């Protein structure tokens, strides 16, 4: 982004939009028809969920699920919000997601800085350790992890449960440990493209390694950090597995995992479930629509390596 060199302007000149070839008139009509139909099918489940959520249970019972008529209101949304104590679970999610996100970015940028800007003998080994760790299925490590979490005792100010198990700290730690892998990989690739001369000049001026990291490299990484932040936010917020296994107390679970307890317990009807599901999806949908560019570039940053 900052390091863009000669190649970019030429590309822009040859292909103003996407780099593809402009199809003929009839082909374009066909293409649009196909894409519109596909998009309609794609969005149908969400529209249906929204439609169901906007109708009272009684109306769907009387008229059928796929029907028009009856009342339309936001009652299911308010009911889900209150009955299911959604604000409480949103707060749990925030307590987990925000610290996990910030610390993940901080720690991974540090490792990435060391690996990308200095030559150690174990550079590659470190990178492999982090990258591979993120690719493992979570279930491959949960059994011993669960046991470790039960054995580690914590003072009560750190964890209500007195253990790493069933504590916010425990969930935050595993998110950090797991997600650092992906972020380190992406950030180290990016930091390598920053010219080394930048750091050297600072070193001549007597700047420390820390200063080089904090005042030179980190500010240049802002776009990547933004992309990673949006992506990691949705991943950590959407987590279901860690929270389900490592957080035994239902009322302490983040919202995505808590919803599972709540169905059956509070929700007697699909209309209410639909409303609750949509409310839970709001934060990630907002992030997606507001920061779509960052989101997508975060995904693709990790997937290709120059």
């Amino acid at each position: 982004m900052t390091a863009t060199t000669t190649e970019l302007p030429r590309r822009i000149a040859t292909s103003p939009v996407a780099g593809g070839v402009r199809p003929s008139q009839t082909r374009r009509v066909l293409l649009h028809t196909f894409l519109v139909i596909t998009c309609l099918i794609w969005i149908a489940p969400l529209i249906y969920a929204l439609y169901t959520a906007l109708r009272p249970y009684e109306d769907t019972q009387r008229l059928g699920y796929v029907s028009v008529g009856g009342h339309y209101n936001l009652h299911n949304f308010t009911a889900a919000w209150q009955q299911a104590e959604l604000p409480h679970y949103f707060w749990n999610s925030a307590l987990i997601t925000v610290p996990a996100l910030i610390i993940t970015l901080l720690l991974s940028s540090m490792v990435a800085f060391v690996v990308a800007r200095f030559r150690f003998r174990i550079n590659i080994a470190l990178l492999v350790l982090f990258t591979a760790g993120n690719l493992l299925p979570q279930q491959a490590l949960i059994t011993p992890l669960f046991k470790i979490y039960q054995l580690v005792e914590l003072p009560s100010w750190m964890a209500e449960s007195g253990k790493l198990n069933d504590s916010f700290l425990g969930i935050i730690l595993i998110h950090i440990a797991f997600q650092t892998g992906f972020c380190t990989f992406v950030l180290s690739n990016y930091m390598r493209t920053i010219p080394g001369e930048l750091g050297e000049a600072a070193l001549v001026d007597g700047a420390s390694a820390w200063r080089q990291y904090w005042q030179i490299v980190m500010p240049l990484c802002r776009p990547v950090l933004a992309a990673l932040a949006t992506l990691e936010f949705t991943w950590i917020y959407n987590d279901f597995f860690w929270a389900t296994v490592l957080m035994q107390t239902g009322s302490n679970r983040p919202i995505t995992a808590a919803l599972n307890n709540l169905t059956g317990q509070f929700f007697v009807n699909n209309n209410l479930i639909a409303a609750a599901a949509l409310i839970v999806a709001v934060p990630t949908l907002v992030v997606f629509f507001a920061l779509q560019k960052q989101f997508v570039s975060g995904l693709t940053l990790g997937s290709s390596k120059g």
Partner: protein
Amino acid sequence: MTAMEGAARSAPPVAKRRKLRQLSIRDRVVLSLMAGIPTLLTVGLVWVPALASVVLSFSTWTGFGDFSTIQWVGTENYKNIFTIYPPFQPAIEHNLIWLAVFFCVPGPFGLFLAVQLDKQIRFSRIYQSVLFLPVVLSLALVGFMTELIFSPTQGLINNLTGHAEHNVIDWLGNPSLNIWAVMVMACWRQAGYVMILFLAGLKSVDPSQKEAAALDGAGGWQTFRHVVWPAMRPINIVVLVITVIESLRAFDIVYVINKGTNGLELLSVLVTDNIIGAGSRIGFGSALATILLVISMIFIVPYLISMFRKDERA
């Protein structure tokens, strides 16, 4: 993105990394801490448990009591898994179905969508956003959506096709049907993911190559087959690895629907069942986890080797 990748590749010689000798002691301490703390965390919470899974798989342990209550039983857990553990075979089958379907449906379809959206057409961004939308939903939510759509009497499908009142099709309760209903929704989410990855890959292909091929008289398909597809090799590998990993990790959707029972068994669910639930069987669960680990390593290791080989030489 395209810009960045291009820049990364043609960038002025990668930062010359200084030798450690030139660093002050304080800097060396700082750098060691910067790399050391995150490494400890990842080793302690990811790698130690992963290796412990392998070690504990040769034991029986209820998990109550301390380490002295661990009994080593050799390969007995594995023998039991393969011979007298009924859910194992369906779980393997379902994981394979998951993999095959992910490979055959969202893979090619995502690629097809990406190729179409890469053409210069209007509204491309809107199409992209809509198709990508499900990816930001959590898999647990997709599980709830699956119930909305496939529930026998209340779901969209049966109500639309008239199967809600007579000849009810029990999409989620029938063990030979439910895995397919779940797959429909899993593919719904996966296709957008694959599409975006391929789209990034397509944009990183040098357009002048495509133009050259067109000038040489190559048609659209020929250009794609001989120029674009080979140039996208790095992305193709990424998509392959993601397809495999996501199939092995699959858990949330089926767990939301029926805790992964009655036709929805998966390896990941079996591992979980042995920890939470009434009888925790650490050794047995670890053996299942080790099987999962070995299968995923078959794909992860070659991927990492191919990815980091370039660095080794540099």
